[in-house]
């Protein structure tokens, strides 16, 4: 069905191929194929090659053969190719075209010359199965990250392509939705005799796949298992002899969005200095809303917030930001400067933080360890999305707040980048900083001190916290 033979692709700005294969692979219909690899290993390039985005929208040098149904891919017209191949790229946000979930869902089916009523009926069933029917009139950008990702996948799958390519489709999904997507993909491949190609970061569960491959440094090869997802380098000590003072308190926070969605239903929270608190929960459970309220971006309809024992009501935005900074889930709107260096110092500049030599050295060290310092004058948009996430985290740490609010900070990072970021955050906590972090998939237990779960807009203690 899909054959790749001795092929390689090199971007104009690179000397070495971003993707290459020596030999050949043949992936058949009815299979789930997983290709796993680190960030920058060539997964997205492979997705773009199969879907035809390369060379239609991105230039470069391609050598070798890719065949679909025995026909060379460059002999297929774009229309023929896209009828056969459905592709969902990692940054699903950028693939939103309409201003309602319903229009987004029906858009892909409109090209299939189906009757409008047939499309409507099918879309309704699809939205129901992806648990998005209730939100069909919502603006897609108002959905949570996981809901947006599900919508992007659902709208492509509704076109029933024979080959479905998904680039990191689990990155924004919670545990329940991950499992549900896995089941859907297996059913799509096995039940519908279709080929599903999944490009996953290293360490992502892939035991449901029929065939496994690895991408290392752009080279596609048979799968080689790696060890534990996270190394044991970071082990937080939780046995503090002296209880630290409370730095952040929230009492009975309630928030309802204009579309009547009750996001927070009386949230109470008390966080002590130097602790790392993680909030887990399903997509759309209100985790991001809570962080935005604490950061002062949204105003709660009920409830109070205290920072360092003082009620924040009436505080200037800058005063609050000096104590508390937030990393948002959406990466692109946070890229506010044309160079990496400018972006890394922006938050501290806004809050008027005086820069000294030792702090600047720390910043340099962070940028160097993430291989960003040698590119400090280049545009942050040239970075991979995970590198942008890392850079934003560095910029917040440089602003030296007392509390860091992190909305899904690790969701797009590679295993190595996650380790680096976790080490910095651990250091931040040891120096007295406090972290409140959300994660739909949960974090390794040794990273954080306390874990809560957000259920129906309320915070519930998890087993770990009870212990």
């Amino acid at each position, binding site marked *: 069905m899909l054959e790749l033979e001795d092929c390689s692709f090199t971007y104009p700005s690179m000397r070495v191929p971003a993707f290459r294969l020596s030999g050949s692979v043949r992936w058949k219909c009815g299979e789930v194929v997983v290709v796993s690899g680190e960030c920058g290993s060539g997964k997205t390039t492979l997705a773009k090659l199969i*879907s*035809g*985005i390369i060379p239609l*929208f991105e230039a470069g040098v391609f050598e070798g053969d890719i065949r679909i149904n025995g026909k060379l891919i460059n002999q297929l017209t774009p*229309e023929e190719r*896209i009828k056969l191949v459905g592709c*969902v*790229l990692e940054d699903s946000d*950028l*693939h*939103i*075209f*309409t*201003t*309602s979930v319903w*229009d987004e869902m*029906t*858009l*892909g089916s*409109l*090209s299939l010359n189906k009757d*409008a009523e047939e*499309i409507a009926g099918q*879309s309704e069933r699809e939205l129901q199965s992806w648990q998005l029917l209730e939100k069909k009139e*919502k*603006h897609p*950008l*108002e959905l949570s990250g996981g809901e947006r990702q599900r919508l992007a996948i659902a*709208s*492509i799958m509704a*076109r029933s392509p024979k080959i479905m390519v998904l680039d990191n489709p689990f990155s924004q999904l919670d545990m329940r939705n991950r499992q549900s997507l896995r089941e859907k993909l297996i059913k799509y491949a096995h039940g519908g005799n279709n080929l599903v190609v999944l490009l996953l970061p290293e360490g992502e569960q892939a035991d449901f796949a029929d065939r496994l491959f690895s991408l290392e440094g752009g080279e596609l090869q048979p799968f080689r298992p790696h060890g534990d997802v996270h190394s044991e380098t970071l082990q937080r000590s939780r046995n503090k002899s002296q209880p630290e003072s409370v730095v952040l308190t929230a009492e009975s926070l309630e928030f*309802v969005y*204009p*579309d*009547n969605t009750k996001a927070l239903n009386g949230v109470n929270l008390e966080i002590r200095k130097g602790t790392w608190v993680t909030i887990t929960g399903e997509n759309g459970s209100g985790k991001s809303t809570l962080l*935005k309220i604490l*950061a*002062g*971006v949204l105003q709660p309809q009920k409830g109070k917030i205290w920072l360092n024992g003082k009620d924040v009501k009436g505080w200037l*935005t*800058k005063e*609050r*930001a*000096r104590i508390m*900074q*937030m990393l*948002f889930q*959406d990466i*692109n*709107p*946070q*890229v*506010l*400067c*044309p160079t990496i260096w400018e972006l890394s110092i*922006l*938050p501290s500049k*806004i*809050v008027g933080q005086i820069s000294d030599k030792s702090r600047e050295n720390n910043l340099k060290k962070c940028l160097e360890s993430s291989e960003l310092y040698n590119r400090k004058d280049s545009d942050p*948009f040239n970075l991979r999305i995970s590198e942008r996430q890392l850079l934003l985290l560095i910029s917040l740490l440089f602003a030296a707040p007392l509390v860091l609010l992190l909305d899904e900070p690790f969701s797009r990072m590679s295993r190595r980048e996650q380790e680096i970021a976790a080490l910095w955050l651990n250091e931040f906590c040891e120096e007295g900083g406090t972290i409140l972090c959300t994660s739909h998939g949960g974090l390794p237990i040794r990273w954080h001190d306390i874990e809560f779960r957000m259920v129906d807009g309320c915070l519930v203690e998890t087993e770990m916290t009870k212990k």
Partner: protein
Amino acid sequence: MGCPSCGGDFRIKGMLFYFSERSLLRKINPCALLSTLIMVNLISFYVSRGVVIATMVLMIGSAWVSKLELRTWRLILPLMTGFLFIITIGYFFFSQISSGVMLWKYPWGDFVTTGTFIAMMDVALRYLVCAMATVLFLANVRESELIALFQSLRFPGLVLWTFALIFRSVGLLVSDFERIIEVLRGRGVGFRKTSLPEGFTLLRNILWAFMVSAFVRMDGLNQTLYLRGIRKPITPITTRKLSWTWLDIGIILFNLLIILWFLRN
């Protein structure tokens, strides 16, 4: 439980504004609303001042029945203020209205009389009515309904696609802009208490982020259309269908009659 900030009402985000599903104007066909908008914009500059004031009162009444939030007006306030400022400048420095008492004369020949003030207020009022009608229209119609309207009116595919791209891009770019502002607020930017140098830096940051996000969005848009198999301008754009009532037809006929009457006179 309803949203406390909007009186328990259910609101949906449209192209630019949140609108209420309980709005009475939502029950009227977008075609009828569009014809009313065109009629108001046409006649506002030809009818007497009394009729303009009456139309304005009617607009305020319509805003009330459409449950338009006060913050919707706040959103367009800077735009309206800017526009009224331009009108004021135009009349104060570059007009020659001779009615009334002469107040002062400029070296370049233009002058200001008491009549200038009256004329300025009159024009501002007429523009204000047009702006209010446009806001009311945009706050009660979704962009997909407009596209469905043009589709049902058998507009050529190319025109339809142009409209769709404009409407949808505007909606998405407005959302992107809101998210940039959200980020800046989170970083500690207080928009009300900003000094001039800070303001310039801030403007640069906003413009940079907005420009880049617009480019990235446009690039993504092309890929999206390709990945969904959409062929411009052949593929239809929406599955939405508009419902018609006798009231809609009555409104359209009424508006058409007024427009024709004005064009004849």
